[in-house]
């Protein structure tokens, strides 16, 4: 039982990364009918930006001779990096995708792949092939809760992730921009007839998705402090799986599917050798998709009217 609960805790943390990344995938897909295959690399860029911001903040504070509390630096790092990575996402949309609106979907998809490669190799060119350690901003504290070991970092990661998910839900359902996004997900073409500037909404969608990926990147850096330029690839693909499994454009679906992926992976690894983890985990998901091809919350329509 203790062993089981221990794995639940680990799965919650692992699933948080997938869920946060999957949300960006799902939003862009749902609202703009676009697979942003560069999204995993945005997660990587977010982690690196987080590294840069954190390192910069630490250097600044030591130069000024003030010892900033680690928590404070971490929160500031997350917020600043989310903003900066959002700008990267907006740039990707503006430069890569917007000129291709109305082009065949395959062109936009390979644009994503190319942007991904550019971000990876750009990073490589900029920082070299060495791996980078994410600065340790907070001391790990381990709590023993009835035999289950929980660290302050794990709690922080899950709490921050859930808070961001709640914030996103509120944004989508309580603001006029969120309303415009929901309308675009339903019928892209007529949204401008409502006086809504769709380019602004598209940019905002990318900004939010990228900001969430950045948060995931930093939280990942806190838990596993080794960054490399290709770290976003596998994470990106898995988050993409979660987004599809959740159902087209479904925020709740992407969240739950992200956590489900985390659970499946962790629990498969609990029983089987870890080398078999992804083989077994993704075979399970393949079977789930066979029975629910539209994902958990997807609707089997999508033959929507388009001009």
């Amino acid at each position, binding site marked *: 039982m203790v062993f089981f609960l221990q794995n639940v805790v680990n799965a919650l943390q692992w699933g948080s990364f997938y869920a946060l990344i999957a949300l960006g995938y799902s939003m862009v897909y749902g609202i703009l009918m676009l697979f942003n295959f560069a999204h995993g690399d945005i997660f990587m860029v977010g982690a690196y930006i987080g590294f840069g911001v954190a390192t910069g903040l630490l250097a600044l504070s030591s130069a000024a001779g003030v010892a900033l509390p680690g928590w404070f630096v971490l929160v500031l790092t997350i917020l600043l990096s989310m903003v900066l990575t959002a700008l990267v996402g907006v740039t990707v949309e503006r430069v890569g995708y917007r000129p291709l609106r109305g082009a065949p979907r395959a062109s936009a998809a390979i644009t994503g792949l190319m942007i991904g490669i550019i971000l990876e190799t750009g990073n490589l060119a900029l920082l070299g092939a060495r791996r980078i350690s994410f600065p340790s901003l907070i001391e790990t504290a381990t709590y023993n809760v009835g035999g289950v070991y929980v660290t302050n970092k794990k709690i922080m990661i899950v709490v921050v992730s859930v808070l961001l998910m709640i914030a996103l839900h509120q944004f989508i359902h309580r603001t*006029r921009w969120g*309303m415009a996004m*929901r*309308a675009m997900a339903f019928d892209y073409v007529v949204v*401008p*007839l409502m*006086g*809504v*500037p769709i380019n602004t909404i598209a940019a905002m969608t990318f900004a939010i998705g990228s900001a969430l990926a950045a948060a995931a990147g930093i939280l990942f850096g806190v838990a596993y402090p080794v960054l490399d330029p290709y770290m976003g690839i596998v994470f990106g693909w898995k988050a993409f799986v979660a987004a599809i499994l959740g159902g087209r454009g479904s925020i709740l679906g992407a969240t739950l599917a992200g956590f489900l992926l985390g659970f499946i992976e962790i629990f498969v690894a609990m029983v089987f050798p870890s080398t078999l983890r992804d083989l077994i985990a993704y075979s399970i998901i393949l079977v789930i998709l066979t029975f629910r091809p539209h994902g958990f919350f997807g609707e089997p329509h999508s033959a929507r009217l388009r001009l």
Partner: protein
Amino acid sequence: MQLSVENLHVSYGNIRALQGVSFEVDEGEIVCIIGANGAGKSTTLRAISRMVDPEPGSRITFQGENLLDSPPDRVVSRLGISHVPEGRRLFGNLTVLENLKLATFARKDRDAIARDLERVFAIFPRLAERKEQKSGTMSGGEQQMLAIGRAFMSGRKVMLLDEPSMGLAPLLMRTVFDSLREINQEGTTILLVEQNARMALQFSQRGYVLEHGHLVLQGPSRDLLDDPEVKKTYLGG
């Protein structure tokens, strides 16, 4: 002239939908364009609301200003031209109230928005009853009311209507057209395209007949109703 269209050409690939259409609409008028399916009626409205790009040489001006300089959302929010598209195209995943509110996305005049919302609910009490309902679950007539209400909220100078009678039972059609007349009397210019030529000509002051991308006939709607050609082709003899 409030709205003036000159030499409008629109093509979809190789298909030439409009081939030099010119007409004008004056402030406060109700003008209709009638024509068969595929004559180019919807395309004319789409060109005005900037959902399709006309070919070079086409001119559309609104109150003397080149309308083609404005992106689609600004045609609505800045010029005040609203468009009830073919098939209504409501956001079925949003509630009735959300559909109406979305139409005010670019508006900042909160008090006026609240007044307009009340006005829509006064014109279409059914919408008030179904405020919190998802619009996709409403009947065809209610959806048409919401489509018009949404246009009312978004831009009030000109309303472009694409087949408002489509799919409506005669009694409901009356209700809808009576409401449109009410909206017109409050100062909104109406340009509608219809396959139901009789209804459109009875409702409007002036009419144009569109055939294969050309305007072939125009005049006061009363005269068009008596025109032998119009009678034969569009009014069933």
